[in-house]
């Protein structure tokens, strides 16, 4: 019995050391596109935060909505004031987990296509999403990217009929983390 407990404890401590392998970024890039008959809208935010626990596959993202920069200042104001209501809901979050995290080896060059399932919180609404992601290791630089589509109605972001030809109901989102850094606990 003691042997078993000791073995489990040893195993657990092993898991625990492995769990130390966490990566983070504060300079991820999020871009979204709206393609509509009258105009295309694009906005970019290059302060996407993320923490990735490599062994468990758990990954989280957080972004300040006011950090999205638009080409037209008025669009940016309307985005914050009328659509995502940044004062009320300042951030968007994602908490998810990768399928088969053990298949990923960050020690050598390689490209992995993984499925990430998790909860996305936007405009105060939390919904489950599944996105395909690409993880690339090249010359010890670990990068990740994904592209997916969101339906604005699912997050209770309403597009008034008067601008329905200006703003698409489905928004294409690109996420890119150019380089993950190891997270050292402080």
């Amino acid at each position, binding site marked *: *019995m003691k042997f*078993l*407990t000791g073995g*489990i404890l040893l195993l*657990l401590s092993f*898991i*625990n050391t492995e*769990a130390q392998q*966490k990566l*983070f970024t*504060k300079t991820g890039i999020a871009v979204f596109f709206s393609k509509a008959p009258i105009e295309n809208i694009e906005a970019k935010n290059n*302060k996407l*935060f*993320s*923490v990735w*626990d490599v062994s*468990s596959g*758990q990954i*989280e993202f*957080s972004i*300040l909505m*006011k*950090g999205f*920069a638009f*080409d*037209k*200042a*008025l669009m940016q*104001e*309307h985005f*914050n*004031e*009328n659509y995502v*209501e940044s*004062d*009320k809901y*300042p*951030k968007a979050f994602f908490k998810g987990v990768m399928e088969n995290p053990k298949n990923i080896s960050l020690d050598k060059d390689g490209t992995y296509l993984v499925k990430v399932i998790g909860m996305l919180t936007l405009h105060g609404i939390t919904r489950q999403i599944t996105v395909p992601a690409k993880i690339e290791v090249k010359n010890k630089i670990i990068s990740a990217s994904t592209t997916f589509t969101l339906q604005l109605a699912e997050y209770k972001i309403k597009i*008034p009929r*008067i*601008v329905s030809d*200006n703003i698409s109901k489905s928004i294409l989102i690109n996420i890119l983390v150019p380089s993950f850094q190891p*997270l050292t*606990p402080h």
Partner: protein
Amino acid sequence: MKKIISSVLYSLVFLSASAQEVLLKSLDDSIPETVKITGAFKSTRVINAHSVEMLAKHNLDFRIMHRFGFISDGIKQLYGLDAASFRMSFDYGITDNFTLGIGRSTFRKELDLFVKGRVLQQSTGQKNIPVSIVAAAGTMVWTEQSFAAIKPDFSDRSAYYFQLLLGRKFSNRFSFQLSPIVVHSNMPVNVTEDKTIFALGGGGRFKISKRTAITFDYHHPFGKLDSIYTSPLSIGFDIETGGHVFQLQFSNATGMNERAYITQTTGKFFNGDIRFGFNLSRIFKVGKHR
């Protein structure tokens, strides 16, 4: 035993999960962002007066302002709609904090020019600034033909103003600003009037939906003005649709520049001397991309 092991396992999994949440949180909090407060008003003018809002860099605001006759004139004048006074202006954001504007009004064929600069912008976070401070200065000149025996020269027809705007967006719905102003007319309409008039004013906005708001704008002039002149009070309704802002209002003032509305408003608002009017603002992006 199994129970103990599984509970230990659960608690460890739980611990590592919560540790991670804390990590993302600490990462989140490590950069205390300064968030600028935007959209205190829908437009760069509350109704008549400048607001603490600025045009963004390279944005051109084409404004058409109309003021009609008194509603109390009745059906014969179609409740004032037969008499229209008009001002057209082009305002341009040279930077996010500096705007240049030019306008012309039908009333006395007045041409006006202004500069407006933001000194401080309300923000929260690392830098907590409770108010926005904006200064505006302008000049205007009557260009209508004079039939007076001695024709007034350019200087006689000119006036200047300096205005300070102190505004705060108190909540998503409510914004308020104080707008003290000094107007100097080189030759007032009536010789007994003070050349320099100081006025204390205020303006506010109450949002009733995401795209509509109720606004008001009031100035109280101090100094000697002819007794026919009153304090300009306007109550408006803002409607925003994409690149346009429509401002509908009821006001006792006809003038749409600072000299005209501060020193030459004649209607008594509470005696029913109310005019209908509207401002239409269309913003164009001019120049290079950001």
